[in-house]
């Protein structure tokens, strides 16, 4: 297969950046998108050019590192798949493919397709945990959890922190990510003591980072590789409002 690529190249955070055209040939349909970029990079290095920088690590859809906006979609055209789990058979021979970094004020570009997503870490640091020191735990079976709740919590906990939700959201909002963590812990008895403060602190940190506001468009849910649901955002809204209106 042959493709025309338009790839965002930007030397560093201060550089203006622009789309650069590349053509690549002899691509196997069973290659992953990242392997296709590997092949292109290999060519670039051999030609003495600067290879395209991109984030990746596990290449099996779980670490959340890979992050490309491909032909106008976060992680590309395939539903419920990360960039590393996208295969070239999803494209047609001769396609022109745009490759851009996540775009958000809170995710500044570091180089080419690599962005700084440390805002997510700071949001977790603001409250995405249960405050229990090592050794303080009681027996694991002392607190039963209804199976349905445990399953819902697991659904929310599946978030890989990739930021596709932010990238896809026309508002650059991070609510799907934040609500997934708030929901996971709100569904467990262990999460109750800090439920109110957690919701308030995490939302405040999210706002501070410069993410946009949710207007319930739903692009995040549609593009999330782990199919995190909008119901989590509703749960977060409920918790946040209850926490701030009712608690003293």
């Amino acid at each position, binding site marked *: 297969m042959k493709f025309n690529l338009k790839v965002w190249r930007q030397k560093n955070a201060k550089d203006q950046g622009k789309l650069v055209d590349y053509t690549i040939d002899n691509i196997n349909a069973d290659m992953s998108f990242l392997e296709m970029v590997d092949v292109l990079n290999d060519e670039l290095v051999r030609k003495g050019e600067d290879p395209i920088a991109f984030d990746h690590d596990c290449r099996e859809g779980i670490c959340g590192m890979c992050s490309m906006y491909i032909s106008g979609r976060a992680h590309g055209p395939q539903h419920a798949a990360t960039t590393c789990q996208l295969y070239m058979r999803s494209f047609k021979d001769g396609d022109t493919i745009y490759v851009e970094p996540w775009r958000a*004020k809170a995710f500044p570009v570091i180089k080419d397709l690599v962005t700084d997503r440390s805002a997510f870490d700071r949001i977790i640091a603001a409250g995405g945990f249960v405050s229990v020191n090592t050794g303080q735990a009681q027996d694991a079976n002392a607190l039963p959890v209804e199976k349905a709740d445990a399953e819902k919590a697991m659904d929310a906990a599946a978030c890989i922190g990739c930021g596709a939700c932010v990238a896809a959201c*026309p508002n650059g909002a991070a609510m799907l990510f934040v609500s997934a963590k708030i929901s996971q812990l709100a569904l467990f008895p262990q999460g109750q003591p800090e439920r109110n403060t957690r919701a308030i602190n995490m939302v405040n940190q999210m706002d501070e980072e*410069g993410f946009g506001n949710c*207007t*319930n468009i739903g692009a995040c849910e549609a593009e999330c590789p782990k199919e995190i649901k909008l119901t989590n955002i509703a749960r977060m809204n409920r918790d946040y*409002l209850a926490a701030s209106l009712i608690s003293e």
Partner: protein
Amino acid sequence: MTNSAIFKSSVGKKALMGVTGLFLITFLVIHCSINAMIFLNDGGETFKKWGSFMGTNPIIRTMEIVLVAGFLVHIVDGLLLWKQNRDARPVKYAMNSANANSTWYSRSMGLLGTLLLIFLVIHTAHFWIPNRMQQGLTHWHNEIDLYGKMLEVFQNPVIVAIYIFGCVSLFWHLLHGFKSAFQSLGLNHTKYNSAIGWAGTAFSIVVPAIFALMPVSIYLGWIK
């Protein structure tokens, strides 16, 4: 936390949009029901009766202030959201296939809202403002003939077209806004979500359709 801080937060702002939105929806229900009285085709008798009740009853007139405030908050909050959301993505995508993951109207609430705002200005300039001006502060019973005014205004095809356009905007705005308000307030439950969705769609169709039918019927002379 203080309650004013809530409304500075993202979640608070959208909740505010939701609350004011739902409030404006209830206003639409009342406005629409009363105006629909013209379809009785009784020379506006029923309509006038209810209309003048709304225009003169002190409780309703007090509520009217709340309504105006509701509009203002909804508009200002909306503009604020629009501005902040625009700032959250300083560099746009060169290629964006947004239609693959969302509907155009959900992404265009600001635009639809602005259109509605323009329409609101035109609409109130036709009826509500002249009426309140004539009533002044003290002569509440000195109302203009709203029914007659309607028959007069809707003879102009351009105005009828503007009204239809306004109703279409309202349809799209409601189609997203109705459901969205529930979501923003955290009123989301797997058992009731489909009912809310259904009600939202029905409401967005029925209410604007009834509104649009008014200028059309008058223009076509069905109502005299």
